[in-house]
């Protein structure tokens, strides 16, 4: 693919938010320079590009930084609107529904599964696992409403909400391996379970999503670094 000029992505290999942006850039068919960041020793470039939150992902386009993964995904869809696939639907209500659920995922799913990883007791872990399952039950409903019988949240191919949820799947798998929590029960969330497999099988996911084991290794490193009262498998 021809480059679109000066495009850099500051990221971290196992950040689901970075993966989300990489998926979006893949959908738009945009090539970019990926710069891996050490979040325990933040670079001058990262601190300069995201002085407010000091986090990844940061997209630097023509020297201008854009921060916050969902903001970046919307930016990519707008600035490269003629290229690649559309990430957002055209209809304002459908866009609103996609935005609602994407915000819900970041507000509820991410803290729940991170909480499973950080839990200091089995009780606390079980509590967080329960929270995660409630979220997934709601997403099962959302999938039924949004997909209208089609393979993805957005319909025939992946869109905004698929990216918003899908970037977390490798972490859910990592946590399943570490703690034995089953997130996708074909009995309880059949649509989501089928979607998750389908999503993981897309060319986009196969190209940009890291292996769940990479996340497991990272999680164990974090536990070693910060100490943990319960051990993973």
């Amino acid at each position, binding site marked *: 693919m021809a480059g679109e000029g000066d495009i850099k992505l500051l990221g971290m290999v196992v950040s689901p938010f970075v993966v989300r942006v990489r998926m979006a850039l893949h959908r738009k068919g945009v090539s970019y320079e990926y710069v891996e960041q050490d979040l325990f020793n933040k670079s001058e470039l990262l601190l300069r590009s995201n002085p*407010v*939150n000091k986090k990844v992902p940061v997209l630097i*386009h023509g020297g*201008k930084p*854009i*921060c*916050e993964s*969902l*903001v*970046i995904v*919307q*930016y990519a869809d*707008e*600035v490269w609107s003629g290229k690649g696939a559309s990430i957002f639907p055209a209809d*304002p*209500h459908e*866009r*609103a*529904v996609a*935005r*609602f659920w994407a*915000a*819900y995922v970041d*507000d509820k799913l*991410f*803290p729940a599964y*991170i*909480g499973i990883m*950080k839990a200091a007791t089995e009780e606390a872990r079980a509590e967080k696992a329960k929270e995660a399952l409630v979220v997934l039950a*709601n997403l099962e409903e959302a999938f039924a409403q949004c997909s209208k019988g089609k393979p993805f949240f957005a319909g025939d191919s992946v869109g905004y909400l698929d990216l918003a949820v899908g970037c977390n799947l490798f972490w859910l798998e990592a946590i399943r391996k570490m703690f034995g929590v089953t997130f996708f029960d074909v009995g309880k969330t059949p649509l989501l379970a089928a979607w998750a497999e389908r999503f993981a099988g897309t060319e986009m996911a196969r190209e940009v999503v890291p292996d769940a084991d990479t996340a497991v290794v990272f999680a164990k490193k974090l536990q070693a670094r910060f100490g943990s009262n319960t051990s993973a498998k």
Partner: protein
Amino acid sequence: MTEPVKLIGAFGSPFVHRAEVALRLKGVAYELITEDLFNKSELLLRHNPVHHRVPVLLHGDKAICESLVILEYIDEAFDGQPLLPTDPGERAEARFWAKFFAEKCLMSVWLALWTEGETQKVLMKDAKEHLAIVETQLKEKRFFGGVAIGLADIAGASVLSHWAGVLQEVAGITIMSDDEYPAIRRWMEDYNADEVVTECLPDRDQLVSHFTSIRGKCVAAAKSMLPNYLATK
């Protein structure tokens, strides 16, 4: 043909105020349905089954929930004064600041008001850091939206301009004293002076009695929001 617009709201909610300002800036006629949040109607529960909270925008048979999602919907579904600029980079900036207000600045201010001891010290420090960031931004522009009120202004000023004073009074805590943050004060005054804004600001004295009567609930709400805020800092 225009479909009827209704807004499910409740007295004292700055989030409902956001939606009202946006509708009025666009010149959209709407019916305000006032909820008793301690006795939620079937209408509200049906149209916001996930969160059971206000505001909910009803446009014909479509329901849109979450105030920031509603703001973007209003901008896209109705003609009139744009709430977002046309340039993708500037749109990304506006969305970034709206998110910063919602997830960081307003959150830390709210939590600092209703917590105590060491926790409050941490939150207070965060709130002051966040306000300092906003102060720096507002030294360079009249509104985040430029000449006119935009998405980020509605997100931030909706709370800071009218509610912050009331909440500090009810909580008995000062986060923004009279001689601090001159640029923020100027922005708040400019926001409050806008005739559209004045039309949908609740009476200050009523707001004080309202929050005084639900003080206990504010403390409880802050307690439940604290873990997520700290986990995603």
